């Protein structure tokens, strides 16, 4: 930072006492280091954004990666993406989009980790709109 100021100062005030060859020589590498940190930070943030946006999905139904058709690596990426999307939604003010009113016609009453998320996505194949506390927790009800 001070290095870049120095160099700018040097250009603006060529006769200024503030410009010394020694200080410029010391400050330059620091400036380059800061620029590299800045670039690394931008790249890291872009990567996080990319992972959050490009979740490997099994089909066009916005379903997370399927155990049978995707590799562990793809499923890991899908999990990271789900986690990041959850975080993003938890701090955003966007609400769940409204849908045409209906009546509740089905209950799924098994515990989690018994295939409830799989059945959630299976029901969506039949144009059913299932609701879960974990997926639709932003509903203001």
């Amino acid at each position, binding site marked *: 930072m001070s290095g*870049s*100021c120095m160099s700018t100062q040097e*250009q*603006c005030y060529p006769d200024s006492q503030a410009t010394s060859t020694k200080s410029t020589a010391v400050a330059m590498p620091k400036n380059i280091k*800061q620029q590299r940190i800045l670039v690394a*930070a*931008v790249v890291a*943030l872009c990567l996080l954004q990319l992972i959050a946006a490009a979740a490997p999905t*099994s089909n066009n139904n916005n*379903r*997370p*990666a*399927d*155990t*049978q*058709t995707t590799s562990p690596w793809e*499923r*890991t*990426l899908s*999990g*990271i993406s789900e*986690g*990041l999307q959850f*975080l993003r939604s*938890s*701090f955003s003010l966007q609400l*769940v989009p409204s*849908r045409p009113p*209906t009546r*509740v*016609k*089905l*209950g*799924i*009453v*098994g*515990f*989690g*980790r*018994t*295939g*409830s*998320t*799989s*059945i*959630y*996505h*299976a*029901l969506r*194949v*039949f144009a*059913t*709109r*299932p*609701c879960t*506390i974990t997926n*639709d927790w*932003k*509903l203001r*009800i």
Partner: protein
Amino acid sequence: MQGLFLPNDDPNKLSMDEWVDALGYRGFDAILYYGYDFIEYCVEHDIPMILTTRQDTRKWAKSWAFSVKLIDTLSQRPFAYSKTIQQILPSMHYVTKVIPTGGHPDQYLDMDTLEAGYHKHIAKVKRMVPSHLLLEYNVQQGWKPLCKFLGISQIPADDFPHVNDRVVMQAIIATFTIVAWIWPLLLGMAAYLVLKFIQLFIRRFFMTNSKATINEKKKN
């Protein structure tokens, strides 16, 4: 969503009827929730129910105990700063710690308690729900029993979805844990970036202006 789980004296507290009606009004026609008040409501209103089960209960208990870490992470910072997350934590506590342990939330990581809680839940649901309204279902069975129960004649050509396995859960929990550890660093990084851009802007704008003024003075 949290209206059902608010304390009884809260003016925004919803009854089960109001909660289910509100979800229907928002366009949902199926609810995944295993609170016994909801099961009672479904029985009263002749709403069919699917009870998802797993063959190996010990495996289920291990998987469940692993997944519940997610809820523990949500009570830490920076998640504690999200008002919406804080609002759903009481419901999460009830659903993930009270019911699956059979009313012993302090033992939510104990395998035997979880297994007993699982069997207790299955038995209770079977006792509460008339057989014509209940499908006991293992996702390994695929589309056929599900379509039959729902009265759907055409079985989908797609494979039955199998999602959220252990690998995915591990990745989600790892993401949450890492964020819980490094969030100050992320905030610092964002603040640093903003600062750098402001500095860059000031330098470009003001320095260019002052340089132009000096050059103008020199010319004069």
